[in-house]
C-alpha cells in the first residue's frame, strides 16, 4: 500500500490537484509567522550589550543561512529520487529548488556583509562561515548553469541532479576544510554571537523567524513546482482542460 502512495506522488497531476488547497494555508502561516517574528525581533527584543541594535539582522541572516544549506539538500535529495526512481515530479522539485536556494544563499551573504560593516568595520571578512556560504553559492550557480545549458529538459535535470549529488558529498568536506583553514590563518578573536549564549528574549523571535522562513520556503517551492508542472505537462489533456476552465 505504501508503494501505491509513492507512485501516486510521482504523478504530477495528482500532486497538482492535491496541493491546490495547501497554498492559502501555507501563505497565511508563513506571512503571520514572519510578521510576528519580525516585529518581535526588531521592536521588542532588547538591544545587544556590545553590538547595540545592529545584531537585529540575525533575524534574517540566520534563517536564510539555515535554509541555504537545507535547500541544497532538498535539491540534491529530490534529484537523487528523480535519478533512481525516474520520478518526473522529483525532477521538477529539484529544478524549482535550485534558484530559491541560490537566492536565500545570496540573502545570507548580503546580510552577513551588512552585519559585518558595523561589527568589524568592513563589508567583507574572510570568515569561515561567510567563505563556506560563498562556496555554497557557487555550487548553486553551477547547478543552475548546467541546468540552463542543456536544451533537452530531461538531460538537464539528470545532469544537474548528478552535480547536486556530487556537491552533497563535498559540502561537509568543504565546510570542514574551510573551518580548519580559518583557524589556521586567523586566531579566533572575532566571533559571531554564538547561538548557545543568546538570551531567550532574543532567541524566541529568532525561532519564530526560522520556522516562518521554513514555511515560506515550502510555499515558494510548492508554487514554483506547480508552475513547472503546468509548463512541462502543457500538452496533456488535463492541463489544457484546466486552461480552458479558468
Amino acid at each position, binding site marked *: 500500500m505504501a508503494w501505491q502512495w509513492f507512485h501516486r506522488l510521482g504523478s504530477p497531476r495528482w500532486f497538482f490537484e492535491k496541493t491546490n488547497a495547501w497554498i492559502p494555508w501555507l501563505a497565511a502561516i508563513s506571512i503571520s509567522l514572519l510578521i510576528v517574528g519580525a516585529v518581535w525581533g526588531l521592536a521588542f527584543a532588547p538591544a545587544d550589550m556590545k553590538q547595540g541594535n545592529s545584531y537585529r539582522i540575525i533575524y534574517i541572516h540566520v534563517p536564510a543561512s539555515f535554509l541555504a544549506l537545507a535547500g541544497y539538500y532538498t535539491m540534491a535529495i529530490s534529484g537523487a529520487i528523480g535519478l533512481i526512481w525516474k520520478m518526473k515530479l522529483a525532477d521538477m522539485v529539484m529544478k524549482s529548488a535550485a534558484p530559491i536556494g541560490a537566492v536565500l544563499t545570496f540573502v545570507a551573504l548580503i546580510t552577513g556583509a551588512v552585519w559585518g560593516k558595523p561589527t568589524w568595520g568592513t563589508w567583507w571578512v574572510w570568515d569561515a562561515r561567510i567563505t563556506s556560504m560563498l562556496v555554497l553559492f557557487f555550487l548553486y550557480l553551477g547547478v543552475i548553469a548546467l541546468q540552463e545549458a542543456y536544451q533537452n529538459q530531461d538531460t538537464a535535470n539528470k545532469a544537474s541532479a548528478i552535480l547536486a549529488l556530487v556537491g552533497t558529498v563535498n559540502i561537509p568536506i568543504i565546510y570542514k576544510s574551510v573551518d580548519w583553514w580559518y583557524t589556521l590563518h586567523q586566531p579566533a578573536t572575532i566571533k559571531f554571537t554564538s547561538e548557545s549564549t543568546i538570551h531567550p528574549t532574543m532567541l524566541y523571535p529568532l525561532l519564530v523567524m526560522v520556522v516562518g522562513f521554513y514555511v515560506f520556503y515550502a510555499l515558494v517551492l510548492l508554487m514554483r513546482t506547480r508552475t513547472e508542472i503546468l509548463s512541462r505537462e502543457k500538452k496533456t489533456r488535463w492541463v*489544457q482542460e484546466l*486552461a480552458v476552465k479558468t
Partner: protein
Amino acid sequence: MTQPLIELQALRCERDERVLFENLDLKVMPGDVVQIEGPNGCGKTTLLRLLTTTSTDYEGQILWCGAPLKDQRLDYLNKLLYVGHLPGVKKALTPRENLDWFCGVNQGHQRCTIESALEEVGLFGFEDVPCHHLSAGQLRRVALARLFLTPARVWVLDEPFTAIDKQGVRNLENLMAEHAAGGGCVLLTTHQDMSMSAVRKINLEEFKPQSEWSAGDIV
C-alpha cells in the same frame, strides 16, 4: 519455433515532449536483416540508441533472447556490434591501432587478424598510415573493418553506406547476407536503396501517434 533474438513490445519513446513512436512491436529472428525506415526526425537514431543501450528512456519492453534487456545488459553488449554515423576512429592513430583498441575494449574476441580485416575492406597497405591521411570513405572502411573482426551476433548499423563506393556497398550487402545466414541479425538505417532481396523493412512513420493533442482541439 525459434526464439527471436530481439523483441520489442509496445515500445514507446518520447523526446523533447514529443512522442516519436508508440506501440512499436518487432521480432528480430536469427537470420533477419531489418531496415528501419522513415523520414528525418521520426526517431530512427533514437531507436538505435535504445537498441545499443546508450539511452534507456523508453516505455514498453525490449527483450533479448526472451528476457528483459535491462537484466542482461552485459551479455547483450558482449554480442552487439554498433557502427554509428560517426566512425569512432581516432585520426591520430593508424587503422591497426584503432582496431587494436576496438578489440581490446571488446574483450579481444576476434574472428580474424586485424591485417586480414583491413585487407577485406580494401585498406591493404594502409595498416600503419595515420588516419588523418585517409579520406572520409577510407575512415568509414576502417570502422567497417570491425564487421569482419567481431564475432557479435547483433549488428546495429547507422547509415553504413555513407561515403562508400558502389563496389563497397555491394560487398557490404554480401557480408550482411552472410552474417544473417550464419544465424546473426542486422538492424540498419539507410537512405539508399538496397539491392538485397531478403530485407525486412519497418517504417517508423506507421508507429507515430495518431492524433496529438493541441490547444485547438478543446477551445
